[in-house]
């Protein structure tokens, strides 16, 4: 996924990674039936986009005005834009059952994580 002139150096450290685990009940929204955090949304900046490969693997192209919004076969919404970045992962959204516990967990396991401001007007009911 890494393209262009963003070539990591030896001391650049590890990149962000996500492990996707298939839900045992694909017919039901996973976040309604699970106590574990569910990946709801993924935003990536990639140097190249192979739309044909996405379509062939079952992705649904929802939007393509300068960036791509894709719905994966499992329902995960992914936004992709063309861009070079050392780490292509820009944003993830998890739906969690216990918000406070989740915040505490990420503060404990992610060194340097800090709460950030949500975009103005971004909270929708």
């Amino acid at each position, binding site marked *: 996924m890494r393209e*262009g*002139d963003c070539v990591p150096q030896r001391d650049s450290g590890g990149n*962000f990674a996500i492990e996707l685990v298939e839900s045992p009940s694909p017919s039901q*929204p996973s*976040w*309604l039936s699970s106590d574990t*955090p569910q990946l*709801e*949304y993924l*935003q990536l900046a990639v*140097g*190249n*986009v192979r*739309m*044909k490969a996405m*379509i062939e693997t079952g992705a649904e192209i929802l*939007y*393509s*005005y*300068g*960036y791509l*919004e894709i*719905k994966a076969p499992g*329902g995960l*919404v992914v*936004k992709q*834009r*063309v*861009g*070079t*970045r*050392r*780490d292509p*992962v*820009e*944003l*993830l*959204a*998890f*739906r*969690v*059952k216990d*918000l406070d516990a*989740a*915040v505490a967990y*990420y*503060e404990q396991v*992610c060194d*340097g*994580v*800090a*709460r*950030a*401001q*949500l*975009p103005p007007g*971004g*909270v*929708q*009911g």
Partner: protein
Amino acid sequence: MEWPVPSSLQGEYRADGRVHTHTPSRVAPSVGHHQLNTARQLHLLTYLLTHCRLKCLSAVFGVPVVEPMRSQRDTASASNSDAGTTYDGRRWRRRQTLGAQVLERTPPRECRTVRRGVSGVLGFARRTCDIPTKDVFSPPNAPGSVLMSVGNAEDSVSILLIPQVKSV
């Protein structure tokens, strides 16, 4: 990696079917050469894969864009004409190119926000006339969501935690 796009397809598709190559002055100044090439290739792929739907063209080349469905709906009386007014009062004109419908908006360039539903979660996407940058996007979110960020400003990864909504 370069996409194998025929050189004859690089440029703008005109109403008469000819291809017009953009001059540098028409390219958005914020668009780097690498980005432009990549974005152009993305557009061309879109063109080829969606049978002449050119909706990426404006975004790729920094030309003002319109939202076709919204424009058509809000100018239903002008649906069969070659010009109309967008919902925010700007003029647009429509043309046929190889079976494709191309909507153009008159200048000036603008950036605006549209709200869209995202897979059951109310969210919104911000669309601009330029190549999108990171701040173009906003995450889907819900009341009570917490945004966390790790890493430096250049390479930060943001994690949005959305509280689970109890099923009724």
